[in-house]
């Protein structure tokens, strides 16, 4: 929110940091903004906030801005940041935790297709116990309307017989129970 003076007023949520801690995020407030996480992040070029900025925003409790950001969805979980952080902050886990919280709270994600993909992936695993690539790709394209993206690659895969229908797994009922217990439907 911008005031007349041009100074940004942050609507901070002081409980945000506590919530992250209760979900297993450690050492957050030790961040000294050294920027190692941001500088080494391979996806920073596509993000709206660098991982360094996001960590600061998390400490300040800028929940809305974080949930609305591309950053939490574009993190590829490469764990470069986590490996390099001198203060032992698990930045990648923090990204995942905030992504999980944003999905739980029903926030409209900035990267809708990424969230959809993960949800559809889990639907397929829930139904079959294992990933079935033709079903995953087909459902994803239907749900996102991206029929014509990657047509050439799809044809290549079919020609090379890279796409196969794999059978259902015997343990799929157990997998269904596990997924239903922990997943938040979008």
């Amino acid at each position, binding site marked *: 929110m911008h005031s007349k003076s041009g100074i940004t007023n942050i609507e901070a949520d002081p409980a945000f940091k506590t919530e992250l801690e209760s*979900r*297993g995020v450690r050492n957050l407030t030790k961040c000294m903004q050294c920027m190692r996480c941001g500088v080494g992040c*391979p*996806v920073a070029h*596509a993000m709206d906030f660098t991982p360094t900025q996001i960590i600061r925003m998390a400490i300040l409790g800028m929940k809305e801005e974080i949930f609305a950001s591309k950053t939490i969805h*574009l993190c*590829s*979980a490469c*764990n*470069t940041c*986590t*490996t390099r952080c001198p203060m032992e902050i*698990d930045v*990648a*886990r923090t990204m*995942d*935790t905030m*992504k*999980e919280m944003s*999905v739980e709270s029903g926030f409209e994600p900035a*990267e809708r*297709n*990424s*969230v*959809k*993909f*993960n*949800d559809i*992936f*889990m639907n397929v*695993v829930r139904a079959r*116990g*294992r*990933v*079935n*690539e033709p079903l995953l*790709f087909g459902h994803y394209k239907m749900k996102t309307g991206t029929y014509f*993206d*990657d047509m050439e*690659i799809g044809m*290549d*895969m079919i020609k*090379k*017989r*890279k*796409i*196969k229908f*794999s059978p259902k*797994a*015997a*343990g*799929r009922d*157990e*997998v269904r129970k*596990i*997924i239903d*217990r*922990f*997943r*938040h439907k979008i």
Partner: protein
Amino acid sequence: MNSVEEHKKFAYYPGCSLKSSAAEYDHSAKAVLGKLGVELVEIPGWTCCGATSAHSLSHDLSIALPYRNLALAEPAGLDIVAPCASCYNRLKVAESTVLSDPAEKDKMDQAVERSYGGKISTLNILEVIVDRVGIDSVMRLVVKPLSGLKVVSYYGCLLARPPKLLGTSNPDNPVELDDLMAAVGAESLFWSYKTDCCGAGHAMARSDIVITLVDKLRDMAIEAGAEAFVTACPMCQTNLDMRQTSASGERLPVFFFTELMALAMGMKEAEGWLSKHIVSPFPLLKKLNII
């Protein structure tokens, strides 16, 4: 069973990719391990490890899905080998998480209705070949050294990080693939991108990110003097094989390291596996008289 045999017997977790788009990795891994005297027993009733999608949606789910597989494997008393870098990563992270946190283990026991107590452990396929079998045994089986083949070894993220949970000794500069390539007569060139990210699970929703990262890897591989990539990760292989753009340069073939080992061991089946690759490796292999 005496201890020597037991040492080379493993529970096999293929994972979903190896049963579909990366079938050539499944076949070549089994063939090479078999040749090296490693016995594999597929985990009965294994299910998906959750991959990238589970941990993007729920931390608990990302532990519970691999936990089920750890629990299924434990009664047989054999360590697990998971050739897929992503499956290995998820199984190992689950293992470290529950073994260091009793509350987490209790939660998983309840949710999964099965229990894993840490009697067995998960290894990646490089650890099995390099540490358990040994490079010497590999060298003894080489009948057709891959002379003249210049590759860069690409480990990606998932075999190396996070080192605390995986127990990786050298996350910035792993050498196992390089050593194996040298053992089969190929030249594995030095480059600084061994453990850089290929864009991983963004392939569907944000392929632009994958293309940017993959083209960078390709450019750096060419700068290092390589004519091909070698990898131990189905996700890296798929992204590199499918997403190199031809506009800014040539597309390099992307081998699973087990395919190259099989070629050096004179296995005829290798050509069938290689025919599934999108960037054909045949012109390069023919030029070098490898096939």
